[in-house]
């Protein structure tokens, strides 16, 4: 173990730790997935089951459900670590903390985002989304859910120990551009327009968001330690 001093070692360590912690409880995978499906189901229940109506709604509804599921899932990402002192170690470690935070968020996204992608495929059947749109849906959600997890982590760092709904009120308005862009990717695919440029834009937002939001999250965490 002569690589102890490299940043990548610590990144991998935290990634593995968080993944291991998540794997212990099967609920960590299932709950966000099922929450997503429940939200999806609410729409036909509330609005009626007509085929064409639902399929016209489907890109938006799927994205809203993904938004809610991502933000609520990531809400408690720092609570446990704050309480048991692991976050203290992060801050004292001397490594660039935003990399460690990114490791946590990335681990969380692997556990919650991947089931979400699966659930979105299932929901295309519930909402009668045309089959050819599954690819743009998945790719947009792939980038989108990671971005949303990062944003949600920032909100969660601001509200460690407070109710989830406060975190949601803070973060949801900020996530509106992601929502608009994500749905636009799917609807432009419906119209057989080129959706790749929107996708690149979303990717650019992710590229800026990873360092930017992680840095902001670190600042938010350090506020709790004044």
């Amino acid at each position: 173990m002569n690589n102890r001093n490299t940043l990548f070692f610590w990144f991998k360590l935290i990634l593995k730790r968080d993944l291991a912690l998540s794997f212990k409880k099967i609920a960590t995978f299932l709950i966000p997935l099922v929450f997503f499906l429940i939200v999806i189901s609410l729409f036909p229940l509330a609005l009626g089951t007509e085929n064409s109506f639902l399929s016209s709604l489907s890109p938006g509804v799927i994205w809203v459900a993904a938004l809610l599921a991502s933000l609520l899932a990531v809400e408690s990402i720092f609570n446990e670590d704050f309480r048991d002192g692991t976050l203290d170690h992060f801050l004292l470690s001397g490594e660039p903390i935003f990399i460690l935070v990114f490791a946590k968020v990335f681990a969380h996204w692997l556990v919650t985002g991947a089931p979400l992608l699966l659930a979105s495929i299932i929901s295309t059947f519930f909402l009668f989304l045309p089959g050819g749109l599954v690819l743009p849906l998945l790719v947009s959600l792939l980038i989108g859910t990671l971005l949303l997890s990062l944003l949600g982590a920032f909100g969660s760092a601001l509200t460690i120990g407070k109710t989830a709904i406060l975190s949601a009120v803070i973060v949801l308005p900020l996530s509106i551009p992601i929502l608009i862009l994500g749905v636009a990717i799917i609807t432009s695919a419906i119209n057989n327009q080129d959706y790749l440029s929107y996708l690149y834009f979303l990717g650019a937002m992710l590229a800026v968001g990873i360092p930017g939001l992680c840095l902001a999250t670190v600042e938010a965490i350090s506020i709790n330690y004044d």
Partner: protein
Amino acid sequence: MGSPPFFFEWASRLLPWLFPISFLILMIGLVWGIGFAPSDYKQGEVYRIIFVHVPSAILGQSIYLMMAIFGSICLIWRAKLAGMFLRSAAPLGASFTLIALISGAVWGKPTWGTWWVWDARLTSTLILFFLYVGIIGLYSSIDNKQRGDRAASLISVVGVIIVPIIKKSVDWWQTLHQPSTFSLTSSPTMTADMYLPLLICVIGFYFIFVSLLCNSLRAEILTRERNTGWVRKYLNNKVSE
């Protein structure tokens, strides 16, 4: 200037002047606009709501910007007064944004027949209102005042970076969903008789904002520095007056 007791004294001296001046300017602007400006060719009399709607919207957005500026001062230099500014300015910003929303809706009913329209500007204003409420909720939930200040500062700074993105995406979203672009509050082509009272109203609104801000900051300073010597002396002097 940056210390609470200095600002407190300074604000206390200014306030008896600030409020009357604000009301004077507001009176001039509003009476001119609502009473004497010519009626609009297309919208008749109801366009006069503009004299409240536009200044409120301008102020709602400026205050958010100011909060980001003072927020960065609070984060970088840990200036207590900068943090207190956020707590006093946020409710004011939310209030002005709320006025802008309500006035926009009331303007829409006689003009376009509906109380609400999802046009780019109103939608952005609604989102701004949500952002304000989030900030207020955040610092209200944190008991430690300094921490609450810093949290609010951080969300303001991050928010101000994301707000242009929100604006751009809402503008773009509107072009996707409303090919017939009509803006709810498309301002009537303004003649000087309409533009001048509007300008005076905007200035009046800024003055009333500063007045209310100083008022609120005085309360905030007294609340926080309650147990310090200078506050005790001040309060005892007040009693003996």
